[in-house]
């Protein structure tokens, strides 16, 4: 299993702060498609992702047990 962690407004869009889902073997890009289509997350394209608190690229592959965080950059100031 994997744990997904949603920050800020993504939490509201996903309806939960965390989600348990098995996505091991998939890439971050594939996971983005899944959460966008199945969990209603929008603008997921420009959201930063981290695997186990380390910055992740779209082609990084998720391992069993990994926690993936979705962190949307914002522009307000």
């Amino acid at each position, binding site marked *: 299993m994997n744990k997904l*962690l949603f*920050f*800020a*407004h993504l*939490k509201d869009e996903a309806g939960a*702060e965390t989600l348990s889902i098995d996505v091991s073997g998939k890439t971050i890009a594939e996971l983005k498609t899944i959460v966008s289509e199945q969990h209603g997350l*929008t*603008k997921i394209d*420009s959201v*930063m992702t*981290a695997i186990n*608190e*380390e*910055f992740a*690229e779209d082609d990084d592959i998720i391992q069993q047990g990994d926690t993936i*965080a979705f*962190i*949307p*950059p*914002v*522009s*307000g*100031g």
Partner: protein
Amino acid sequence: MNERYSRQTLFPAIGEEGQKKIRKKHVLIIGAGALGSGNAEVMTRAGIGKLTIVDRDYVEESNLQRQQLYTEEDVFEKMPKAAVAEKRLRAINSETDIAAVITDATPDRLEELVQTVDLIIDSTDNFETRMAINDISQKYQIPWIYGACVGSYGMSLTIIPGMTPCLHCLLKKIPIQGMTCDTGGIIAPAVQMVIAHQTAEALKILVEDWDAIRTTFTSFDLWGNQYTNIKIAKAKDDGCLSCGEARTYPFLQNENLMKTTVLCGRDTVQVRPPAKQQLDLARLSEQMQASGYQIKGNPYLISVEMKPQRIVVFNDGRALIHGTKDLSQAKAIYNRLLG
């Protein structure tokens, strides 16, 4: 021991030596809104040698809830933010050389402004300016500190040329249609939290304590009780056009800037983003309505009432700002609405 900074020099990582360094440094703060006013006040109280603060706006009523240098009188007088900031900062610390610049921080202006600067503290409200700051930072080897917030959520990142990845390494391209304070609101504690991180990093850079620099991307949600630090060292991209080997500083180039034109004979400015975008107008419209704006629309455009202006946004990201001829005001309104 100078009594004024005694509690700061007592802090061992600063000390008398650090205080001397702080006194010799020049900090540039881009933006005098919520982050800018707070960052400027901390830097000034800390005894920075010179502080330059840049902003194009004047003080509005809706600023008072979170922008800490301004009072009701400044709203009444419609004073430029940078001018008010300068006056208050001088009353706080007459030993600091304060320069207020009332201008739009375009790449050209930024190149002039950074010439004697040791550190740039980002306090702007849009990614276009941030990406220009990021390029400038790499071009002139000046550290900068990204900070941003919306709602109860915020983030900070320290960028040291030659040491850390840059913002372009992390974001790849400018995020579009993000939440802004004009759509998602903002609470002052989130502002304070970003300021806490930015100014701590600023002091580390000013006293040259490089080992203490935060090497993670920090984000938090104070209402949701979230806080995380993401390690970013491996994000450093040798092919990055801003900090890589074949760098071109794309965000300083004219073709990558937002274009603004006054429409001939009309009280209207057209704003065009550098690249065509594919906006989700239905969703944008929903968001704006939830934020209390009056919206009309069709599949090709939406029209938003923001009295005294009216903004028409097309699905390719182009917009018409009716009710103004002021280019930088139009750009400001566009950024506030579309991030």
